[in-house]
């Protein structure tokens, strides 16, 4: 029996892809489908699938907290993304312009927050930036004779950017620094010979050559931030005050698992998550187009 090469090639590819496809189906597609279905029900502490079509979405539109929640999400995602990308870039540039060992050490040190258990990191940061006199910064400030600053109470967005940014920027630093290191040194040497300053080298050579990496990271981090709420929950819990830092996915968590009388509003929470799912899909497509990520994947015409 002669199996054509085409067919055997397809077979091999299918077999190799099957595990990945199964995982994606089981852990991504099925939960997504279930979430969308739950958002069409009144599933809560009664644990009954009471179909209510789009009532939850109507409730979302009339809910007085929706506007604040969406606002918080936009601020959080854009701010943390900017911090992660720009600071990661800075770190990568700095750590690749110094001695190799020092650079590696820098990046490893910046990995520490990411490696710490999130509860520990959150406790540490809330202690450092506590608005009361007992926080680390405030006690230092008071000992120098100045007035204590209400860090997490008034400057909560910068606080959150720092808490999450220290985690996210370590990843971008590693990605960008490895990208920078893979730039053929001839370009840099040639530029130096021509008398280019460091800034010019960075702007004209390095940045353009790592643009794919930056684009990838921006796309990846946006989607990841849309679903990130761990550190907000552990530090500010959506506060201080009335829904100031309550991002959409945190709102969903609170509705489902964090209510005082444990009403477990799964249906309504799933509504927020479904919307995030749709936003994520749309953004992925937008990024795909805008960054022309397709070109990242096709085989190079020249090798």
């Amino acid at each position, binding site marked *: 029996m002669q199996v054509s090469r085409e067919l055997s090639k397809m077979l091999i590819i299918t077999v190799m892809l099957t595990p990945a496809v199964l995982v994606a189906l089981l852990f991504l597609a099925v939960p997504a489908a279930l979430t969308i279905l739950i958002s069409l029900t009144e599933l809560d502490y009664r644990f009954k699938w009471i179909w209510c079509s789009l009532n939850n979405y109507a409730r979302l539109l009339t809910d007085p907290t929706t506007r604040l929640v969406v606002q918080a999400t936009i601020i959080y995602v854009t701010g943390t993304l900017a911090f992660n990308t720009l600071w990661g870039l800075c770190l990568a540039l700095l750590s690749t312009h110094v001695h190799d060992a020092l650079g590696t050490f820098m990046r490893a040190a910046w990995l520490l927050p990411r490696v710490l258990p999130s509860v520990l990191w959150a406790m540490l940061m809330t202690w450092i930036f506590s608005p009361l006199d007992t926080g680390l910064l405030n006690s230092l400030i008071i000992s120098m004779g100045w007035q204590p600053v209400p860090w997490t109470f008034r400057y909560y967005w910068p606080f959150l950017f720092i808490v999450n940014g220290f985690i996210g920027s370590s990843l971008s630093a590693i990605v960008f620094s490895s990208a920078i290191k893979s730039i053929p040194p001839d370009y840099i040497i040639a530029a130096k010979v021509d008398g280019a300053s460091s800034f010019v080298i960075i702007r004209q050579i390095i940045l353009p050559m790592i643009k794919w990496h930056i684009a990838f990271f921006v796309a990846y981090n946006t989607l990841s931030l849309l679903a990130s709420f761990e550190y907000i929950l552990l530090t500010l819990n959506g506060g201080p005050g009335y829904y100031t830092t309550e991002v959409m996915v945190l709102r969903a968590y609170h509705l489902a698992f964090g209510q*005082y009388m444990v*009403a477990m509003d799964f249906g309504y929470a799933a509504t927020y998550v479904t919307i995030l799912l749709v936003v994520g899909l749309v953004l992925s497509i937008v990024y795909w187009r805008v960054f022309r990520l397709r070109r990242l994947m096709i085989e190079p015409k020249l090798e």
Partner: protein
Amino acid sequence: MSKQKNVFQKTTAVFLIVSLLVGLVIGYFIGAATAPAPGEVVPKSQYDELQKQVESLKQQLQQLSAQQAGKPVEIVITAWTIGPEKESVYRQTNLAIAAAKLNQIFKAVGIPATVRLEGEFNTASWTDYRKKLYLALEGGTGPDIFLTAHIDTAFLAENGWIVPLDDYIKKYWNWTYYDVISGLWDSVKYKGKIWGVPQDTEARPIYYNKLLLKKLGWTDEQINDLPNKVLRGEFTLYDMLSVAEEAVKKGVVEPGYGVWHRPNAGPDWPILYLAFGGQLQDPSTGKLIADMKVWRKVFEWFYEASMARRKVILDKLTSLDWNRDIHPSIVAGKVLFWMGGTWHPPQWISTWGLGKDKFWEMLGFMLYPPSEKGGKPVTLSQPMTYFISKTCKYPEVAFLIITLATDPYLNSLHAVNSGHLAILHSQLSNTIYTQDKFLAATGYMVEYAKYQPLHPKWGDYSTAIFEVIKGIETGQFTVDTALTALRDLLKSRLGDEVIIRE
């Protein structure tokens, strides 16, 4: 002649001694034969009554034992209870003691069964405990007996997770239920049935720092008369605000440390609404009520107290943590008025190292003052309740355990250790209870205590109140925007289960 007399005397003496000895021996044997069984003297009538009451249970268990070839039935009852404060551990211990008592009763009456109590006393947060409990009840792996606040009755009953207890209570009325303070039954009555047995109750007073009041210039007499002034309607909520404002202005307390309350959602939030005369539930329809005129008064009070006006309530208060910030600050004497609960002093004394004498020296307690001069003070109670779940295989046995735990001695042990109040009339004359100075001093508060309404959507209403007041204190809301926010939140979350009265 005298020799004969000697012999006669000797014989008589010997005869007397021998008969004495014989009499002693006979008497001992008679005594031993008629002595009651060691330690138990029960009038036969009571014993017969007991036999009659447990007759059906006895038959059921005898049948089960027969099915097992005559081996006694081993009954395992699981019980979950919560503090979260560790001082309330008797909620669990009393059940274990009751199970031991039940075993003795079973032995005395000849029921072929042994009861063992297993389970846990939880010290996690209420939200974590409720989540664990509800998910277990739904999944069928829940406990047979569990303790939770009476306010959960609506959820538990609506979901069919618990058995109504009216019949058992009627059957075992004479054991202990005649003794329960009658107002407590209202806290567990939902849709015409009784769903749980009250385990304890409490009151939520306002604690005032006597040392700070002294610094403010109050005399000892004035300080000690303060709770009475509240009772007489002479000291109002706004008077309290003025005192706190003065303390802040004179530097006796730091700005924002005048009046403190809980930093999270909880039962206390409707108290001021009740103090201002608001009604929470419509008795005919059972729907919840939001009287916006009363809410305006409540929000005006909070707005006046906030850092935007009199600087009496800290704006960061709702971001603080119970154990890291709240209790340590109170114990350190930094807060003038604290809206707390009767279970806090045992916590302060036991966990936060406040000496008992120091407590009495530093803190006094009063009801929530009335809103106007001549009005009535108010407080809130949230009785804890034992429930029996539907999955319990031996509900009558579980009920008997709860019944035996609802005992004036056992309950007084719990009350004294944890700062909760009596549920039985006979506790009020139990020496352990009456000797406790704090319980004696707070007992009167139960008369003024109201309950939260039993309704499945009460949690949404209560949380909305908390969220809006949080917004007022952090400076995000004025009184008008707060009212709008509350109205929108209630409409959105409760729909037509709430009656909004403008």
